[in-house]
């Protein structure tokens, strides 16, 4: 419990219920994200991570409860969110270069009938530099590795100049080495932006994020950095094997689980 009431609230969810008409996917979710947080939300597939992100982006209207992004409803407040989507299936044939993909982060700044300006180009260049992709800016997106492509999406989000980064499974379909690189990048970026990240990569995130929540319809988040076996058991409804990198003093009960946590 490292609540520092001095930090301003960035995202506030209160008694949030959401779903797609049938049984609710999110039930009574409460979450307060403070400025400077780096929160990893873990949970099984279908546990509601993507639904939570849709709600935060204003793409799904919750059935009940309130959502505030910097004090505003999501459809307005999402202009303060740099969104990095999950790209499991990507059309490798899509004819677009790194530069043009990253520049889409400036769409909000340049509305209809307005061309990108010099200022936009400068910001895109800076963002690509931050993620280490500036030298590959003329490469076609289809020629990149999964990890490189994710970095371009992070650059696109950074180019939005948003104080919040929202990432949906940034290391899905990325090899372990590139995943580590991605987490290290995010930790650096966290100096200037608040990060909320959904992932199923239970083991690795505990090293990099500041706090962890477990989501499986209900959200178990206490602002702590420890994933306790109890939280995971509540979230996954079964004990989970995990390797907690860099957390040598924690040992989790051994149990067979056919999942993809490594």
């Amino acid at each position, binding site marked *: 419990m490292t609540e520092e009431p001095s930090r301003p609230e960035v995202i506030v969810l209160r008694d949030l219920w959401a779903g797609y008409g049938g049984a609710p996917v999110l039930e009574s979710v409460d979450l307060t994200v403070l400025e400077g947080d780096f929160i990893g939300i873990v949970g099984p597939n279908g546990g509601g991570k993507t639904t939570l992100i849709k709600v935060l982006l204003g793409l799904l209207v919750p059935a009940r409860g309130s959502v505030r992004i910097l004090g505003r409803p999501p459809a307005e407040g999402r202009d303060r*969110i740099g969104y990095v989507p999950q790209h499991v299936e990507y059309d490798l044939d*899509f*004819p677009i*270069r790194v530069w*043009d*993909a990253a520049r*889409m982060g400036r769409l909000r700044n340049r509305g209809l009938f307005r061309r990108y300006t010099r200022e936009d180009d400068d910001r895109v260049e800076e963002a690509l530099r931050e993620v280490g992709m500036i030298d590959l800016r003329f490469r076609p997106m289809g020629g990149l590795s999964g990890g490189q492509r994710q970095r371009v999406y992070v650059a696109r989000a950074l180019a939005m100049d948003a104080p919040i980064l929202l990432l949906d499974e940034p290391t899905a379909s990325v090899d372990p*080495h590139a995943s580590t690189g991605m987490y290290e990048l995010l930790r650096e970026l966290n100096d200037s932006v608040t990060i909320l990240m959904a992932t199923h990569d239970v083991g690795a995130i505990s090293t990099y994020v500041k706090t962890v929540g477990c989501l499986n319809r209900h959200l178990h988040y206490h602002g702590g950095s420890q994933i306790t076996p109890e939280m995971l058991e509540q979230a996954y409804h079964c004990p989970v094997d995990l390797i907690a990198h860099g957390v040598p003093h924690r040992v989790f009960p051994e149990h067979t689980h056919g999942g993809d946590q490594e």
Partner: protein
Amino acid sequence: MIEALRFEFMQNALLAGFLVSLACGIIGSYVVVKRMVFVSGGIAHAAYGGIGLGYFFGFEPILGAVIFALGGAWAMGAAQQHRRERTDTLIGVLWALGMAIGIILIDMTRGYKADLMGYLFGSILAIPRTDLWIMAGLDIAIVAVTVLFFKEFLAVSFDETFARVAGVPVAAVNLILLSLIALSVVMMMRVVGLIMVIALLTIPAAVAGRFVRDLGRMMILATALGFVFTLGGLWLSHAWDLTSGAAVILVAGAAYMLSLLRRRTDAAGAPSG
């Protein structure tokens, strides 16, 4: 073929080929990258209902085709916005329904039905000057709208969710793009006929996509390829007295098959990291 250029119908055919290539180069590129080939086919066939309407009420069938094509395009766009699933069923229904309405209206029309086959199979060798002006006007509209909305069209084609979050009016942008597809389809109908419209719309862009890696260049190359295919088809048709629209598609289809044999050149080489 060279001596045939003395004839005005041949000059008109070449000009029509160029004008149509521009439309299929630009709009075809969006159709290919946004995977709207089936939607475009639906729009083309729905347009036949409008042709029937024109015959039945005695007005210009192309005008009827424009109305039906736009109506069909908007209906499909609305369906995609509101119910995500089963859009392909609706497209299939509009596809056949448009044809059925057209056929029945034409059945009910008395008297001689001039150049009906032209709408089905194309009649590039019988295009009057006035139609060329209409085509040129449509081309100008397509180029202007594409330049105006280039970044929005790209955003919506590449990543619709991100575009929405970034404040792009996705529904409106999609509707504009669908309207351009509808107009292009009607324009292409004069050249290859509605049955083969999808081929002319998609093949030049699909072949171009195997050689270039950004959308602007894809459009330029697709326009050039479209013109080459049209020229080749015209030559075939002239030399062996074949249906011109089918000859154009034969050339285009053969080029597409050849392009599949070629391994993609990736300037990037093998992905690393």
